[in-house]
């Protein structure tokens, strides 16, 4: 019951979802959108498990006075704050002017955007450290990055016309060429490879060969 039933479910559902693509007849044409709805509902149920886990681990930290328990308290407090405001707000909870919207605009968004913006710094430090012409592969990586970087800003072409480069060798032109041809080729190879890997992995899952996601008995 604990292992066999799930394996059968996976196999049957897997096959149905493959063949639905070829069958325009009802109900097969509906499966795709049904699944997206179902998954949305399952996910919304499952987030309770995650939220409870977060609360439990944080509460445990506070209870045992582990290092940084004060920050665990902030996690619980901010979670409860937004959840309370959200649920108190009813179905109009995120309309402009509500507390939820305020938290979204002035707390959530700036935090998100700043975390995202940290990437600017990390991109710089990563390229400073990693882009060294150690061997041929690393040199190619470096050169491609270099050309695309200067080709994507007006400064690149300004330098190009300053040293009288012919039109076809302008950094922006080289960038377009690299992006349009070499990059397309590399992306394509990677994409086809990934697709084959995904087909194979999915097939192993449907056949029940890859079953570790089910855990033990």
């Amino acid at each position, binding site marked *: 019951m604990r292992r066999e039933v799930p394996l059968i479910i996976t196999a049957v559902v897997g096959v149905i979802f493959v063949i639905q693509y070829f069958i325009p007849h009802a109900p097969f044409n509906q499966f795709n959108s049904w699944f997206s709805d179902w998954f949305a509902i399952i996910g919304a149920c499952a987030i309770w498990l995650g939220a409870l886990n977060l609360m439990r681990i944080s509460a445990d930290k506070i209870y045992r006075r582990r290092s940084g328990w004060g920050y665990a308290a902030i996690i619980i407090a901010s979670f409860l704050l937004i959840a309370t405001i959200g649920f108190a707000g009813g179905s109009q909870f995120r309309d402009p002017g509500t507390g939820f919207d305020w938290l979204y605009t002035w707390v959530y968004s700036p935090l998100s955007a700043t975390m995202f913006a940290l990437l600017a710094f990390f991109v*710089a430090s990563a390229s400073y450290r990693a882009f060294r012409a150690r061997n041929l592969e690393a040199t190619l990586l470096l050169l491609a990055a270099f050309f695309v970087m200067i080709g994507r800003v007006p400064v690149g072409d300004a330098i190009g016309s300053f040293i009288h480069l012919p039109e076809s060798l302008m950094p922006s032109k080289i960038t377009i060429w690299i992006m349009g041809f070499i990059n397309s080729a590399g992306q394509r190879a990677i994409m086809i490879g990934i697709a084959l890997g995904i087909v194979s992995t999915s097939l192993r899952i449907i056949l029940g060969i890859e079953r570790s996601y089910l855990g033990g008995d």
Partner: protein
Amino acid sequence: MKQDLLLFGALIVIVAMIFLLVPKPIVFSTTVSYLIIGLILLALIFIFIRTINGHFVGRRIVFLFVGIAVVLPFFMKIHQPIRVSPEVQTVYDSTAQLKPGSKVLVSFDYDPASAPELQPMAESYFRLCLEHDLKIIIMGLWPQGPQQAELALQIALADSSIVKKKLERGIDYVDLGFQTGNEFVIQRMGTDFRTMFPRDTRGIPYDSIPLLRDVRNFSNIDYSFNLSAGYPGTVEWIQVAVDRYGLKLGAGNTGVQATGMYPYLRAGQLKGLLGGLSGAAEFERATGKEGTATFYMLPQSFSHVIVIAFILIGNAAFFLGEKNKARKEQK
């Protein structure tokens, strides 16, 4: 801990000083701007010499320079030339060549986190459509997308040449809002828009909106522009709307995503692409109206130069280091 508190204190003092003492806004004259650039260059040369002597700079120095390179150009007055690349020109041409009254579907598939790159595109795209009397249909596959659309729309509508046209919501443009379901939304729109968007954001039924009277599915859309920052986004639009329903699609992407779009661009599945902030700036150039993206391009160029400078420094040090090593081994 003590050190941290000291630093926080210093920061508070600086902020207070800025608020109380510094005149606002700050604008550097061109001479001062070039002087600052010179100083930064000197600092870089200093770092370069130190690195050659074997003192590698730490991450924090790199961070500091990136910060400076992004912030200082805000106050500078320097003009830089911008060239329009073909994929950007295609978006412009495909849109500008539409007959007045043609319907353009603009999907907003991003959130505020990607706004710095995509918002300028949205603004200048709306402006272009409205100037050419195209009818705009707005929708979003990301929950916060339509809010971003409204922000961009307000800016485009406030443009003096567009105010004159006295455009009306529901007749010249309409916002259908957000719908959950990712690519399935696109798929269902392939047969009927109405099933996915029974009402617009104001709650007016689909059938009562004059603009949408003859719009049933993608076959009634003359061009579509998708602003995307990830999933669901341009890839899904291509896979469903373009491949299955033959929609003509152009896209504005974040710089990261844009690389992945080139295969589609070459395969002709995508008609035009604005990639990242430079794509936005080029588009502003193509439309002949410079805006936020062009203003952002200066810090952009600066920070690029800084990153390239550090790559060069790192490589020079690496090569000289190798040479030293080889010399030692010979001895």
